[in-house]
């Protein structure tokens, strides 16, 4: 994931996290790198084509997993969510991982859990990332 973000620099990279969600823990089993569909402003925007999401979702289902989150990079910007990130986040209950890439090198990586009962009540909560 971090390597993909470095290779995409100075553009934003993005992808899908597949795995299992149990209670409030999302365990990532596989990472699917995607194309950044926002070719109009790839330096500070990202988008994943629905066709890639459908393919990732099928990959997950075939493996007995599900989509548990997404990642994208912030080139030369901190690993904190932006107003745009929240406004365009719609997968309630999923993790949104942000990798800061400073001068081409991946630095901080933070994860945020999209919570709330509806689109109108959604908010990001910081979450702990554990690597095994």
């Amino acid at each position, binding site marked *: 994931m971090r390597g993909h973000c470095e290779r995409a620099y100075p553009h934003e990279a993005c992808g899908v996290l597949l795995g299992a969600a149990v209670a409030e823990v999302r365990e990532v089993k596989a990472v699917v790198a995607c194309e950044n569909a926002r070719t109009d402003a790839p330096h500070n925007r990202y988008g994943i084509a*629905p066709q890639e999401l459908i393919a990732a979702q099928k990959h997950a289902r075939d493996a007995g997993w599900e989509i548990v989150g997404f990642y994208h990079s912030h080139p030369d910007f901190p690993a904190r969510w932006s*107003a745009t990130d929240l406004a365009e986040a*719609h997968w309630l209950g999923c993790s949104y991982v942000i990798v800061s890439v400073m001068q081409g090198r991946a630095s901080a990586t933070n994860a945020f859990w999209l919570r709330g009962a509806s*689109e109108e009540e959604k908010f990001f909560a910081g979450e702990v990332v554990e690597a095994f």
Partner: protein
Amino acid sequence: MKVIIPSALKQYAENQASVEVSGATVAEVLAGLTARYPDLRKHIFSDDGRVRAFVNIYVNQDDIRHLDKREGTPLQSSDVISIIPSIAGGSSRAFEGPR
């Protein structure tokens, strides 16, 4: 036909990742789906009854917004309907930090 429920909405459909719903058109299937699982409705439709702008509805590999009849698109029993909320964002207008 089969309707694929995204993980983000599964909790509103009795934790089903896919369900079988009958209907002659996309609109009929979505109506049947939300009648069976009423909590799904506000996540798919806005108050005016239209599919929310950020929700993509695909019939097999086709976005219904690009099909002539959109929600009126006729279906065959072998079709697979996917409900795909959009994924987008970016560092522009960044102002908030980790909480």
